[in-house]
């Protein structure tokens, strides 16, 4: 019996239960549920892993096995993920310089996430945009034929859109934790 301690956030279990109601508790639904948790919170917490394991009827270490197998499920993720290709065609077309420019623009090293949780920037291997090298993925969209300026402008626009959306939401329902002044 999964005996959650009193200090455990009940919202986690409630959210997992609603996801299970939507996707089912067949083992094949494990990945979509984990991805959704990751998408909503930027990470899959230990508590979420244990609740997911309990609801799916699989051992917690099995769920951890899934989470640690896929890089896109591990660690913290920003609300938007920028993936810059480092494979041969893009590398020869100057991906290293693009990477350095993105790091300066966002103020985080490759693999890092901005403080406001908006953007994670990381290297990725071939995304099949070799004819438009150097290229990157911004969430699910491919952006190719990059130079330093174009790459910087693209991520700046992503951050601006993110800020605007969150300001709109804050007006309607109140500020989120990271928008409140410390």
């Amino acid at each position, binding site marked *: 019996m999964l005996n959650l301690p009193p200090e455990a956030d009940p919202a986690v279990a409630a959210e997992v239960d609603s996801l299970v109601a939507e996707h089912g508790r067949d083992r094949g639904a494990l990945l979509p549920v984990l991805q959704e948790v990751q998408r909503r919170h930027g990470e*899959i917490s230990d508590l979420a892993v244990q609740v997911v394991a309990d609801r799916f009827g699989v*051992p917690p*270490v099995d769920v*951890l096995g899934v989470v*640690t*197998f896929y890089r896109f499920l*591990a660690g*913290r993720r920003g609300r938007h993920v920028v993936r810059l290709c480092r494979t041969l065609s893009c590398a020869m077309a100057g991906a290293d310089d693009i990477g350095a420019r993105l790091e300066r623009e966002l103020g985080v090293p490759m693999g890092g996430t901005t403080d406001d949780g908006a953007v994670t920037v990381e290297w990725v291997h071939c995304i099949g945009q070799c004819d438009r090298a150097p290229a990157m993925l911004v969430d699910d969209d491919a952006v190719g034929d990059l130079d330093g300026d174009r790459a910087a402008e693209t991520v700046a626009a992503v951050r601006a859109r993110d800020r605007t959306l969150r300001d709109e939401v804050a007006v309607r329902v109140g500020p989120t934790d990271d928008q409140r002044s410390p």
Partner: protein
Amino acid sequence: MPVPARNAPSPGAGTSTTVSVTVDGTRIDVPAGVTILDAADSAGIRIPTLCHHPDLRDAGVCRVCVVEVAGQRGLQAACTYPVTDGVAVRTGSLRVTQARRDVVDLLLAEQAGDCPACLRYGRCELHDLAAEVGAGGLDCPAPEPGRLVDLLGPSVAVDLNACIGCLRCVRACAEVQGIGVLGVVGRGPSTQVSTYGGLPLSQVSCIDCGQCVSHCPTGALQAVDGTADVLAALADPTKHVVIQTAPAPRAAIGEEFGLPAGTAVTWQLNTALRMLGFERVFDTTFAADLTVIEEGTELLLRLYRALVQGDTAVALPQFTSCSPGWVKDLELRYPEYLANLSSCRSPQQMFGSLLKTWYAPAHGLDPADVVSVSLMPCTAKKFEAARPELTHDGRPDVDVALTTRELARMVRGRGIALTDLAPSDFDDPFGTATGSGVIFGVTGGVMESALRTVVEWVTGQPGEEYLTHADLAPVRGFDGVRYAEVTFDRVGPVPPILTGLLPDLEWLRGVTLRVAVAHGTANAHRVMEDIRAGGLFASCHFIEFMACPGGCLGGGGQPVPVTPAVRAARARAFYAEDEHYGATGRTRKSHENLALQRLYRDVLVDGPCGPTSRRLLHTTYTARGTYLPVGGEPGAEPAP
């Protein structure tokens, strides 16, 4: 939790289609869909394997069993390749033997560490395989660091530097036991077997059953070693070191000395133990008989409260509590059923309690100088011995629980040739055991023992006229679970030992006692789910649960390797000893044990389940739940 069927059917298997396959030029007719490995085996052709185990679903991870299949470019794993009509296989070609040698070389390269220092040295399946295929000597860099090492115990020690990734432990824990505390994390070269968050076993929902140890081919998983403490005590002249031995180790320890499985060496072992320096050698089956008296009484008292007093709060069915792995499993996963557990301690613990509280003073010994050791087939007994409620004056009732393998090491280490020794008997005052106690170690044995006594108490007739182990019948849809009914068509007077507890036994006239027996915790979980759902087992009165497959004879502390055939041979040894007792005039019923009767006359004077018994021989349990307090981020990259 739902557990996949252990042997998922391959396509076409279970049908009546027969196909013709050729293995090494020999034509064999086999059912469609069986694996090449099984097909070859049916023709007496041996293909070496490693990750294959008859208890487990095949995973095909080690690649030792690769063979040539005509028409396939790459070599195929025989354990997971289903045959089709006309398939031709070569198991011993030069290509295959070279590949096998390379595979074993790579497996050896998975390990870091010092083989001669390992307790499995000389008994390691990987080494045997390497010798067989001619592997060894491949110069490879050491594997990645960061593997789980957990030597804290209390029962199982983990050093995954010796792990070769066969996943037998993972499969045993998940499939055979339905526990699943071992899993595979990471990917590619970082793939490794681990627990949740790399936590020690004592902090995850491990039940200490040791089936992982039982199935591990190397020294990566072992029982925590208590031999050093025991040898130190034996060498200490101020200590009075006694040992109680259980029947399951006695039926199996011969395997460590070259005897076939199922050869009991009980009497020679007694001699060996005295040669090691134990001052007294006692028989745990004495305490097994004691457990029958206490637990049988407890059952009748529960039934009386339920059937006569109409007490709806009384917990039925009563669950046996002598398997500490099962007890911990219930405490973790079904804590709402704690009240169903018999309050009786296990035989090991009843014995330990009597040793420290009665035996010591009765023999002029300070309990602090008595070192109580047990020989058990079980790794969970180490956990049980360390339970805080099973102590007196802050000292454990059982100081060290040794596994069969540990004791075999001690005997070998002293150069004792066990099989050449003369037999000798157990020591009094606990030496007299009955055949009943002897069969505790096999699944169904506790039930049969208990009913021999309970039925005779109630009816005045021998228990075997109502139930023998042949009457315990498998339950459809429940692997590893059996069921029986006993109807009390007659009742007699209340037997003297129960006087004062029950006014009469009339209330049992015509009552049908429903009992069940389950072994292996995956099967136990299915029974628990059925009870939760109000099914057949919810209507039972008494259920015997054993954590390990086959019962204690298949315990995590027994000689390895273990297979269904080995367990069956050990089971035969138990029943043979039971019959031998009857044939040689020794009693087969717990309540006829004379030394036991003296104990109730002189020590447990207020009778079974009375205040003295409750204080010395009963216990309480702890609701645990399966929440794992981790902290930190799961899914974070493991530290380099």
